[in-house]
């Protein structure tokens, strides 16, 4: 995998994680969707780490820098605060913003990376 592709993924994950961190301060903290997003983003970060391992990057410093960012994402994803017992906050009657979901949309920002 090219450095460029990895860098784009890293740029995307940085924003997604920021948005999810904001959601943990919201009622989303007790929401199934945030719990699911945390797992999904955790897997994305793990896959990115594996892609970096197999990538043909000659410059050791570039590789180390990318690895450091992936490590920080891994920590950030792990530290996303989700309640022990979650349920969809729409179903619980707390989230009244319509049919859509911030958390799902935040994860979907990764789709902007082509």
């Amino acid at each position, binding site marked *: 995998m090219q450095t460029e592709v990895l860098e784009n993924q890293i740029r995307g994950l940085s924003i997604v994680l920021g948005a999810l961190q904001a959601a943990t301060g919201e*009622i989303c903290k007790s929401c199934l969707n945030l719990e699911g997003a945390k797992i999904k983003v955790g897997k994305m970060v793990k896959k990115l780490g594996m892609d970096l391992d197999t990538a043909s990057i000659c410059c050791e410093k570039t590789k180390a820098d990318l690895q450091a960012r992936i490590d920080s994402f891994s920590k950030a994803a792990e530290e996303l605060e989700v309640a022990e017992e979650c349920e969809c906050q729409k179903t619980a009657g707390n989230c009244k913003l319509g049919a*859509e979901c911030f958390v799902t949309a935040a994860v979907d920002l990764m789709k902007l990376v082509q």
Partner: protein
Amino acid sequence: MAKTRCGRILGEDIYIEEGDTTTLYFINQLRAYQVVLVALKALDQDICHDGCSLPSTVNKVIKRLGKLKNDLEASDVAAEKKESLLSKIDSFLADVSRLPQDISQTCRKSAGECVMGSGCFATGALNLIKEITEPKALKI
């Protein structure tokens, strides 16, 4: 009338009376801006800091928050709740005002630095607002 929790903004649980769609409208908007602002702050750490899409988005957010503030002031939301929500808008405005607003910079795609395809994170972050579909926009 029974009160229900409908959000948590800047660390404060927000409750409304059942059926109070006017207040709910402002709360839902602020819930979205809370997430958008953090996404924009993350973008400010990216190459977007030197581009034009982030400043353009920041300017849009400033404008929209200003309009939201005017709409809230003119609304019939209960005084105490109105004050509380206005202070949150002011806090968001202060936050977003610290982000880049100079749109004369070159788009990072045009500069050849942003190579993520045709999409744009700044636009995508702003579009998170579109996730709010209820209640419909107020006619003030």
